[in-house]
């Protein structure tokens, strides 16, 4: 379980260069809140094997830790025991750790070079939190950023409540099996990502989904607005250290929802705004709202190809760029709803669908639990 440290480093590490990636994404949600294992989502993403190249795969599952749903679930990669010790010292100073263990994994031939992987359920120490003068979520985000930025060899890759990100270097279906998602976990929604990076960083933290508290993003595309978005969002205290689209998109969504208190629909109108010519033809009320949003957040418009699935507690949002330069299909059957880069990723797990459609560019598709997110 110790990272192979005998290999000499020849290519730059993740975050040192910007790595364009092609990808496959997929997601499923049971809107009744009924939980399913990761078996379906693994089969879905496996069908789109050719959209990945074995250099990154990952999943996010929601509702998977019902017994610990009050606690933040931190998933960590460690390069060595020294970084683990440093991190745990930090965690103890800032959190009450309710439970911790090494992540259960299955040894697979195709998955090599894995780091140490640990999981902690924790909540902020009340005194530390009060002294910080921050709200709880901000406090947790600050702690995560501190570990990721300052403890060499440690990386928090999941930090939400009752959800978890699982990722690594390899084909996504192998990563899914490696983490035993098909046996050990059931959730009401799952997202998956297969990565096709143009470089070979081979760092587990660089795989997707990218998580921030209970938000997770999987993304296929290469945005042309990257540096405009990055430089803008960094003025609000975010630090884009991985230089990936997914990272900056997650921060943008977090900023618009958590700080600016916009709705998901409104977020879509900022990052994937309608063209001015389209807005002019809209009814008065929509025109008023969309014009305002474009005028207020011009630097958060995202251009260039992207298809994203944004996961949050109680739901999913699928969104394409305004020109729809990446394929993405949605489908529904009963309480189940599906999103995938290709229709085959849906048909393979549910051949008989009630509705299949390709959402138009900039048109968000939002699926939420029927009881308004108050799930098991």
């Amino acid at each position, binding site marked *: 379980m110790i990272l192979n440290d005998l290999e000499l480093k020849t290519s730059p590490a993740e975050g040192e260069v910007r790595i364009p990636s092609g990808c496959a994404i997929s997601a499923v949600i049971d809107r009744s809140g009924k939980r399913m294992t990761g078996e379906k989502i693994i089969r879905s993403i496996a069908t789109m094997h050719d959209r990945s190249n074995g250099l990154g795969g990952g999943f996010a599952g929601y509702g998977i830790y019902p017994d610990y749903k009050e606690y933040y679930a931190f998933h960590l990669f460690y390069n060595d025991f020294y970084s683990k010790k440093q991190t745990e010292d930090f965690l103890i100073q800032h959190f009450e750790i309710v439970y911790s263990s090494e992540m259960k994994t299955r040894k697979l031939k195709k998955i090599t070079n894995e780091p140490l992987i640990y999981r902690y359920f924790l909540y902020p120490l009340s005194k530390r939190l009060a002294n910080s003068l921050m709200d709880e979520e901000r406090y947790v985000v600050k702690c995560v950023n501190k570990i990721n930025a300052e403890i060499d060899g440690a990386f928090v890759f999941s930090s939400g409540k009752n959800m978890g990100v699982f990722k690594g270097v390899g084909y996504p279906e192998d990563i899914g099996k490696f983490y035993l998602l098909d046996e050990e976990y059931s959730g009401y929604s799952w997202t998956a990502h297969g990565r096709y990076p143009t470089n070979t960083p081979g760092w587990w933290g660089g795989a997707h989904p990218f998580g921030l508290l209970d938000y997770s993003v999987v993304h296929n595309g290469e945005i042309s607005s990257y540096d*405009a978005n990055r430089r803008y969002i960094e003025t609000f205290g975010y630090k884009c250290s991985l230089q990936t689209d997914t990272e900056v998109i997650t921060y943008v969504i977090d900023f618009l929802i958590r700080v600016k208190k916009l709705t998901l629909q409104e977020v879509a109108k900022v990052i994937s705004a309608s063209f001015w010519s389209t807005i002019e033809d809209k009814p008065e009320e929509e025109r008023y709202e969309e014009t305002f949003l474009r005028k*207020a957040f011009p630097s958060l418009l995202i251009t260039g190809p992207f298809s994203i699935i944004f996961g949050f507690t109680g739901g999913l949002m699928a969104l394409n760029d305004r020109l729809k330069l990446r394929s993405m299909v949605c489908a529904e059957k009963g309480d189940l709803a599906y999103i995938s880069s290709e229709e085959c990723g849906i048909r393979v797990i549910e051949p008989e669908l009630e509705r299949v459609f390709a959402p138009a560019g900039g048109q968000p598709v939002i699926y939420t639990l029927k009881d308004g997110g108050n799930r098991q």
Partner: protein
Amino acid sequence: MKTFIPAEYEVVRDFNLCTACRLCENQCANGVHSYDEKRGVMVADSLQCVNCHRCVCVCPTHALKIAKSADCYRPNENWSSQTMNEVYRQAETGGVLLSSMGNPGKYPVYFDKLLVNASQVTNPPIDPLREPMETRVFLGKKDVEIKRDISGRLIDTMPPQLNLKLPVMFSAMSYGSISYNAHEALARAAEICGTFYNTGEGGLHRDFYKYSKNTIVQVASGRFGVHSEYLSAAAAIEIKMGQGAKPGIGGHLPGMKISDDVSRTRMIPKGVDAISPAPHHDIYSIEDLRQLIYTIKEATDYSKPVIVKIAAVHNVAAIASGVARSGADIIAIDGFRGGTGASPTRIRDNVGIPVELALAQVDERLRQEGIRDCVSIIVGGSVRSSADVVKAVALGADACYIGTAALLALGCHLCRSCHTGKCNWGIATQREDLVKRLNPDEGCKRLVNLLSAWNLEIQEMMGGMGINSIEALRGNRLMLRGVGLNETELRILGVRHAGENV
């Protein structure tokens, strides 16, 4: 001792082609050409020539050209002919040297050392002929609070904005420094193109109030032509704190350009040099500027954006940061190559810094301080082409001002003699016979053509980068790479060297 300064240019006439029609004589306000009755030929006094090319352009038989004079002093790398002539001139007159238009000196042009990116393979370029390509820009404060009505609908809380169809405006050029017809052409072109022109410090002529929706009015240190109606008419109000061509000093309009009409519009006496003070005498510090900004806002009911125009000088980033915190909606930065109708030569040629560096630093500083959203940034001085616009936007500008390029569209040939008031193209003059040479209809059409062409080119370049809205280009410095720049220059510009991967 009488100083003789040889002609810099020689008028060369092909006598095989010349028909002695005397059109050149008629067109030259400098009195270069004349008809020698005795010999029956046209002659030229090259000493009077400013090289404005008017005669060359109008000559029906193309018999004329202007050549650099072969006459020279003994070559000296340290003492150029120009430097020597300037000494002679000053020894003769005891005066301050005057010049016009932008700094022509041999300084680096950073726009020419920046290259733009294009998309391929991993993401697609976008075809502007087939897909929408947006160049619309709103200028003003963006740092709004999100507010909702009782039913949860968003309320538009935006402070006043300027709505531009393309990120290019005509920069401040006063009526007085340029002609009535030039102003009319600029105003009408701004209206047609969905952008703005700027009155400069010369007030707003009565006839042009009808274009006020596309007019930015200026309040400069001389307060020429400023009154409440003037402020109320405008789309935005610009406080001119500095000018790139002459940082640290005020404006100078030579008396011979102050006609009746100019005198009335500026509310100053006719025929006397109009020299606006170097500072605003009610602004000796940043807190004073804040008071003027809010005075103007009060006077106009907070309905118009206030622009503060500053010259690019060494501490421009700190100044801009102060301006952004003082209530300005927009900051205009004017580079050291910016034009002028008249400036002391030494100041024009030696004071200020390149606008590319100033822009990069201002944008970065405002971001570091988390106040980039408080203001929009306009840059000018000098933006010469659509490629410069694209590069400026990628460095962080919201929009650009063009002055010289607009004058070129109207016929200017950059002879840099505006201060003499004898512009043969009818632009930088108030002499009626010269002004009427500039047809406002034609001038307007040429300006519209120029902006339309630039807009198409901007769209092409954006499409190549896979960007379909100018907002996504703003501050997108990864789209730029430097060539032949040293580490310091790259650091200041915030771009990597060409060939360096991201």
